[in-house]
């Protein structure tokens, strides 16, 4: 059984059919990429899976559970973490605190215990810190631990956001354009990290990406979307050779 199953997913904003009947399934341990021109509905699909948007039609199943009607803040607890296209970090906190916020679903103390800072809270904090340090080591963020997000360069923020998603301890990680705005070297790092997430951490990765070199390098399967509909699905090479995909990107071909 697939880890994530999306069936006939659709969302309409008034007359705009941003996503219009998309179906796909992501297998456990797979790297699945969604590509498509701007406005194709890629990020909308992400927002539907993380339940920020309410779908008009269709069904989303994760790990054998129907999450079509779940609330947005329950998604992380199930094991889905995500990053955002336009970095959504907590700007006035340090990198360390941002990563610790990623541990929210694992908190076992309530606010009264927190205010009194009982020994249990300290024990939990140590535990969270240990997990966060693993992420810091993995993403080589050691130098930035105590730096404020507001003062960090774009590339580092992008990595911190991936780190925050990893800190939640997810089964499935949604990466929304992880390489946008990154240099060639940084993009290569991201490619290695995605490989490691899959191989060493056993994560399943679903990503939206424009950088075809990254997509080709890491993804097992690719789905191309345009105007809210699936154009093609298959290996990166198959999808890129598909006439409809070429038409959507280049505006020529298929119709002619």
């Amino acid at each position, binding site marked *: 059984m697939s880890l994530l199953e999306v069936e006939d997913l659709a969302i309409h904003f008034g007359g705009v059919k941003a996503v219009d009947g998309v179906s796909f399934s992501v297998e456990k341990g797979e790297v699945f990429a969604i590509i498509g021109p701007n406005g194709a509905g890629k990020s909308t699909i992400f927002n539907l899976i*993380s339940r*920020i948007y309410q779908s008009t039609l269709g069904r989303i199943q994760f790990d054998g559970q129907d999450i079509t009607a779940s609330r*947005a*803040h*329950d*998604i*992380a*607890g199930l094991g889905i*973490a*995500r990053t*955002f296209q336009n970095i*959504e*970090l*907590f*700007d*006035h*906190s340090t990198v*360390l*605190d941002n990563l*610790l*916020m*990623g*541990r*929210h*679903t694992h*908190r076992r*103390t*309530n*606010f009264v215990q*927190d*205010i*009194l*800072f009982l020994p249990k*809270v*300290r024990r*939990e*904090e*140590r535990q*969270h*810190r*240990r997990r966060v340090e693993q992420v810091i080591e993995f993403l080589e963020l050691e130098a930035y631990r105590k730096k*404020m997000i*507001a*003062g960090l360069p774009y590339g580092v923020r992008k990595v911190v956001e991936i780190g*925050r998603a990893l800190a*939640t301890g997810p089964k499935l990680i949604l990466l929304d354009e992880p390489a946008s705005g990154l240099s060639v070297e940084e993009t290569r790092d991201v490619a290695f990290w995605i490989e490691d997430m899959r191989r060493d951490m056993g994560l399943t990765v679903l990503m939206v990406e424009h950088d075809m070199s990254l997509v080709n390098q890491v993804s097992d399967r690719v789905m191309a979307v345009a105007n809210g509909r699936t154009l093609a699905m298959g290996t990166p090479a198959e999808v890129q050779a598909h006439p409809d995909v070429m038409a959507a990107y280049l505006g020529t071909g298929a119709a002619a």
Partner: protein
Amino acid sequence: MRVVFKTSYDRDIDLHEHGRSRARIAVLLAIMIVLPFLVGDYYLAEATNTLIWALAGMGLMVAVGHTGQVSLGHAAFLAIGAYADSALMNTGLPFLVSFPLAGLVTGLFGALIAVPAVRMSGIYLAIATLAVFVIVEELVIMLEPITGGVGGIMAPSISILGLTFDRYAALDHFYWLCLAVVALVTWGYANLMRSPTGRSFLAVRDSEVSARALGINVTRTRALAFGLSSGVTGLAGALMGHYIGFFNYELFSIFISINLLLVVTIGGLGFIQGAFLGAILITAVPQLIAILRDNLVAVGVDLSGVPGLDTMIFSLILICFIIYEPTGLYGRWLKIRTWFEVFPLARRDMFRRQKSYLKTERMK
């Protein structure tokens, strides 16, 4: 520049990174404790007032500084705290019971209001809280049997274990009582901010959408923050009632709400220390103006006939802060400290990047 060598995660979890800052707090607390032996009644009363304002400021700071919810209605929570405490004491409950209960009642009331109100943000939330304030003010006038209506009531005299804490009969005792409450609340507040709950407050403030994606229930978190905020403000209100002695609804005017916002904004949004610095400023400035006035009379300039001088100076201070130092007094202090720490390597543009506004300060 001091670099702390850390050998365990506990160093980051502790309230203080190094012994020196722990010692500094201890010295400050010691001075505060012996203050009644050092200064006369007039200044001791002023210090008590400042403590109460700092407490109320901390209350508002939870909402405005740490969760990004602007409130213009906190005077209402001061009022609820004050009246609840007096009413409970009048039923025969001792202060040790009525005081926490007053805070609890106010906190629950705040959380109750928050459930519908937290769906709003920015200027809309400010207006909603203003409406709550107006409602509470009317209620206070209408509930005459409890609140004394327009006439007002006398706050009962506090006595704990046979010891009197009356503000007039034993000001030093009352001062210590306030100090103890403020110290306890500050400790709890600092604990909160280093715990998961505090982090979820900051998360909600800085990015609602990613807070949700991380599993934080935004509505509940905001309601909790608003409840805690109004609870602490309620405690401050109870103390304020005892401090004033005889009070009616006019004590808790809209200007108190605005002054509280001044406390947190000028003090420094997002810093517990900011509430204290702001409270010192707000309580000291009127005194300084009064002293200035007297001295000017001595040299032949009479300003006693100029109405609204205090308000004008207040407003000027606020405007200057918002333009030149949005991080407030505490932010300025951090910069001064850094300047000395890295001396002589400070650069003019060192803080340029940090001049980004909190969501609270922006209009959404």
